[in-house]
């Protein structure tokens, strides 16, 4: 029952594919990735200090 022909190439994606349920939705990478299209801005990670005279 093949009713389709066109399918994009996912060779690049396959290498690093993480199952949906295991995607780290709280991580900075997800925030940055999705923020570009849903309008949330990239912020520095919570709990990273910017004070130059300390870490």
């Amino acid at each position: 029952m093949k009713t389709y022909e066109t399918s994009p190439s996912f060779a690049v994606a396959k290498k690093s594919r993480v199952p949906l349920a295991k995607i780290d939705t709280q991580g900075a990478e997800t925030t940055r990735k999705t923020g570009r299209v849903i309008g949330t801005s990239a912020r520095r990670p919570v709990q990273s200090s910017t004070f130059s005279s300390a870490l």
Partner: protein
Amino acid sequence: MTGPLVPFREIVLKVHSRCDLACDHCYIYEHADQSWRTRPKSISDEAISWAARRLAEHASEHTLESVSVILHGGEPLLAGPARLRRVCEELSSALNGIAELDLRIHTNGVQLSPRYLDLFDEFGVRVGISLDGDRAANDRHRLFADGRTSHPLVLRAVDLLRQDRYRHLNLGLLCTIDVRNDPAAVFDALVALDPPAVDFLLPHATWDEPPPRPDGSATAYADWLLAVFDRWTERGRPVPVRLFSSVLSTLSGGPSLTESLGLAPTDLVVIETDGQLEQVDSLKSAYDGAAATGFDVFRNTFDEVAAHPGVRARQLGLAGVSETCRTCPVVRSCGGGLYTHRYRTGDGFDNPSVYCDDLAALVRGVEERAAASLGSPAVAGPDALTAAELELNRHLLALLQDELGGHGHTGWDAAWELANEAERTERGAEALDEVLAGPYARTWLLDASRAAGSGDRGVTDRAARHLAASVAAASVRGRLGLTVPVPTEDGGGFFLPTLGEVRTGWRGPVLVRDTDEGLLVRPEDRGAGAERLIATGPADRPGWLPLRRVGGDGAPVLVLDDLDPRRDCFDGPVAARLTPAGVRTWDARLSAAWALLRAAVPGQAAEAARALTTVTPLVSGPTRAGRHGHGALGLGDEDGAGELALALLRGHRRATFRALAGVTDLYASDGAWEHRLPWGGPEAVPFSRLFAETFERVGAGLLEPRLLDGVPRALASIESAAELTVDGARVLARLRKETAGGARGASG
């Protein structure tokens, strides 16, 4: 000074104002401000209580998720364990239930012992230590008043922190640069101590008191740091270095990670041992009283300090740097440098940094060294872009599950579980990916993401319907045999993305299962006897309308999508389902246009063929890209193959640029600077528009050379713009390569 008030997320609490070392490069004691002489040695009980109260009220008013408190000095350990315990108890108690408390202490390490570390373990206080490198480097400055070295004591402290029982408290090492030290030796000495993080600090200086430059070089500090960068790279980047991470982040379009660099507004306030609220204390290097605000924790709220002109001046981003800096291409990364380093008697802080040449050389040097390892693979070509777009859709779906899942919406929960089940086999994962990569998947994912959290049940209903239909489509594509509950659309049917529409006339949820013979469909509330077999295939059948294909014979085979309810995402209405004759007409028009493209611009035609999967006829207007993912175009009403070929190429370029900008940062701080379009009117446009139009014109100009007029000027503007990131620069390089052949004769 305008703009919303920026709440403080980082509080530097001075718990002791004296130090047991006498470092000659210390900004507290050795520079312009001498206010330490009149401060209480230790913070008082009253100041501790008020500081905790003010912080809790600030976190509550601004609904801050987390606040960091850095215990600092002088030397904070001199406050003693009892005082430090009191500080930790008061802060923990005040913030309990309001915001997460991230407690840190920064020490010279001399006094650090298990007595302190057990206390820090109890309250989760993480510890950073100052160390300037190997013994020779450290002994240049970090000495006791009688000239004795502190180095062995600091190493002992670091050893303690590396023990298993305290390792989780270890924040790392902070090193102040002295360019007379061997950079590689300093770095190696720090790395030998296995710190979880390192940072390098430029010695505080101003235009009045410039930093030492023993060999006279204007870039001595950049050269030193770049030598460390090279060593860091050579050794496989064994430890994060905050300064480098910040430059790498801003080069890629991300935020700066230290107040020393970047345009991010400051969210930092200092509480002195006497309860006075001060601006960032490196200002003490500028002039006596430079950090003072006149406020204190007893009488004033943090909001009052946040509104202080001195604090606001460091929250203005681009507007807060000097005029010279505002037009500099590296300003996004350097941010004009640390505020203190801009000071000059007479004109205050309205100057570039006294480290300006160093900062520019550092940013450019890091960019040269690291550009190849930065950025997204999506810029490499159509396949990588398609993969990145799929990953974006999958992340949007996972975020939706966070918002909508587990809240009693059985339709969404069931569809999510089935999506997870589909992924358990390679074939299922591939089939689900094929569906989620469809260009119109983005439409519902974005609509649902933007509306999620509104509490509107209709949002979840629509999202659940789309997800269920996507899983059912994946089951068909992968022959997974899943039984999927799918809510029907108002007309009593449902659309299987990338495949076609099932029309049964049944209202309400149906159960859908793919078999070798076709789709078995029945209403969810009826038994197996009600099941109907729907033969799906490339031709219209009772209950089945397939998506049809156009193209072939030299043109790409494309889905002609005139069914997907989510295809209505162009700035104009989409056409209703075409008659077979209408499909044949489009097939012929596209084939003719593609033949022209292949003959005139074979490279562009081949790239477009790899990227395009779907076309959707529109009622009127030009062929264009919509707000969907990569790979689709709306077909307009161009006359003749030549016009359509050009429109296809322009649409493809526009869709590609939009897709690239959706998966990576081609630019940052868009809108902060004004640009002019060489082919447009006098009005200013943001960088994004200049870049997008140039991208489109370069691609289409290969077919229609008049579009290349002005492109060389546009490329030059893009190249010198501060907004450009490393990925933006890669796209620019591609445009230059494309124009190298096609732009000959074009006027700039």
